[in-house]
């Protein structure tokens, strides 16, 4: 794949929470920053998210977690990715995630965890950093 080909990002809303204002803003910001963005819509299962990530051969998975079930759901996503042998996808998470749960998510393989109010510029530069360090 050519270096000029845009990177592909999956933004997944896993869990029963229905608030997608942040996700909808983020996907547009990512598009404007030159990424190809696939959005799953709300109320998706970890299985749906992982399968989509594989079929679309994405470079990044961003999970949006707003219902408080982040520990369980993020763990399930990480588990499924491992089962499928997916190792080179950048994992990011964002949502109502308290500081004390961040180490757990990082241990699962999530490179960055963003809390509400994190400016998009922060997310974009973290993303850039992760992707360039993999090239």
């Amino acid at each position, binding site marked *: 794949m050519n270096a000029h080909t845009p990177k592909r990002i999956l933004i997944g809303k896993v869990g*029963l929470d229905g608030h997608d204002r942040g996700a909808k803003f983020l996907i547009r910001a990512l598009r404007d920053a030159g990424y190809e963005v696939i959005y799953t819509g709300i109320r998706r299962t970890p299985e749906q998210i992982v399968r989509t990530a594989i079929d679309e051969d994405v470079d990044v998975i961003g999970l949006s977690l707003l219902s*408080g079930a982040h520990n369980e759901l993020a763990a399930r996503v990480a588990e499924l990715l491992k089962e499928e042998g997916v190792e080179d996808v950048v994992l990011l998470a964002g949502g109502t995630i308290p500081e004390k749960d961040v180490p757990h998510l990082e241990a699962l393989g999530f490179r960055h965890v963003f809390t509400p109010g994190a400016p998009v510029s922060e997310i974009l530069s973290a993303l850039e950093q992760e992707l360039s360090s993999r090239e």
Partner: protein
Amino acid sequence: MEARSKMAESLQKRFEQWKARTLEPAIAKVPECADRTATVSGVPTERLYLPEGHGNEAAEAYLAAQGFPGEYPFTRGVQPTMYRSRFWTMRQYAGFGDAEETNERYRFLLDHGQTGLSVAFDLPTQIGYDSDHALATGEVGKVGVAIDTLADMEILFDSIPLEKVSTSMTINSPASVLLAMYIAVGEKQGVEAGRLTGTIQNDMLKEYIARGTYIFPPGPSLRLTTNIFAYAAEHLPRFNTISVSGYHIREAGSTAAQEVGFTLADGIAYIDAALSAGLDVDQFAPRMSFFFGAMTDLLEEVAKFRAARRLWARIVKERFGAKDPRSWMLRFHTQTCGATLTARQVDNNVVRVAIQALAAVLGGTQSLHTNSRDEALGLPTEQAVQLALRTQQLIAHESGVAHTVDPLAGSYCIEKLTDQVEAEAAAYIEKIEEMGGMVRAIERHYPQNEIERSSYRYQQQIEREERIIVGVNRYAAEVDTQPEILTVSAAATRRQIDRLSQVRRRRDESAVSRTLTTLEAAARGDTNLMPLIVDAVRAYASVGEICDALRRVFGEYEEHTM
């Protein structure tokens, strides 16, 4: 109150009329409180400030646009004495974990001066899944209390006398089921349904527009909604069966005018639905209540609430021809907007909430929930909840704004903003009417798209620092202290699932399947489903089982927009 020599003659005359026909009866019923009649310095506060030194023409304009509190068009408030007689209901939304923990929190709040209960349910309950459902993994008890069967509801209201306490339940798709459970709990306490007071949110249209906890498609949802209306008209005369919500629309990023416009358009759709179900507008509009958010731009918010009252009064009176003045009154609950709370420098949130609460009070809200400072990060701790409640109490007792009705009226700014918000909201309503009403507009994604555009614009402004959020894009600290966050114990989830199994073991299975079969069959026809849901609930059928029976008939709604 003495007559004012400088008031225009026509205004003076109408003022006397208002006093005689609206004010005096109200005071006779609920007298004003002695401690709300003066400023802290001892200057007497007038009940109602009116324009002075203007001619009759100006007076006529005032009367048409604002009038008197407690009288059409209710711009200045739905009661003549507002908070001089009784403060707004201080109603803090609570619920987490299982029914026992929540029951404890309720008793704490009631003991500490809260005057009504507000129930938050967890997502599985809101979406009609039992706690042991696959999709409930990790979600049980997280954003609210988990209720699977009547047994949970009984624990939730243990030692809480339903004939004394008013309960507001934030429940929509399975509102019929939870309402049925509330009725059944009342029965067990010996309180007959007619004496129960409270509200169910029961506003499905905003779920499709902004909140996302829908189960069934719009048609069947509206059928259930009107079933509840009809049932309550007969059996629950003191219960508010709908809280038409603008809060979530605002939280999703709408403007103030959109919040009012889309919410009132939803209200119109509900009245239309009720009418087509054979109800009379005066039979059910008086029981409609509304729910708005309070943002931090205080001036616009006060104007927004006044505009909403005036616009709704006009709609219900002129468009629907309602005769009962109580049909014309827009009564509302307010919650300070959670979307404004930041995860960084959480103490700033205390100040935000105080400003927002003040806006709601100056705007004439009937009840108010103030958010806790740590709400951006998870469920609030007891200390944070207490401070949020104190915020309301401070405004009530120490700020003096409760000592007069609609204090900001007459401000050039407020009156202009009120007119502007009303005009813009009315334009939205007309646009939606042209599309054939709100259900059609939702199918075409009109309100969703409008909200998304506003939301995007707002976010862009923040990203570009054209709009400052203190502590986030300016005045951010290098090191941020993290508050203590409440977590839900895994043990609570385990307990919930165990209790559900226990209930299933103990109940009469044949009664359950009988009631569910009857319900499913009736759902295919068009009879009122409420009595059948009450039957199922009494037999300890679960929320998931009842909703699954309905899913088999109605199908599930799939969101089709990005």
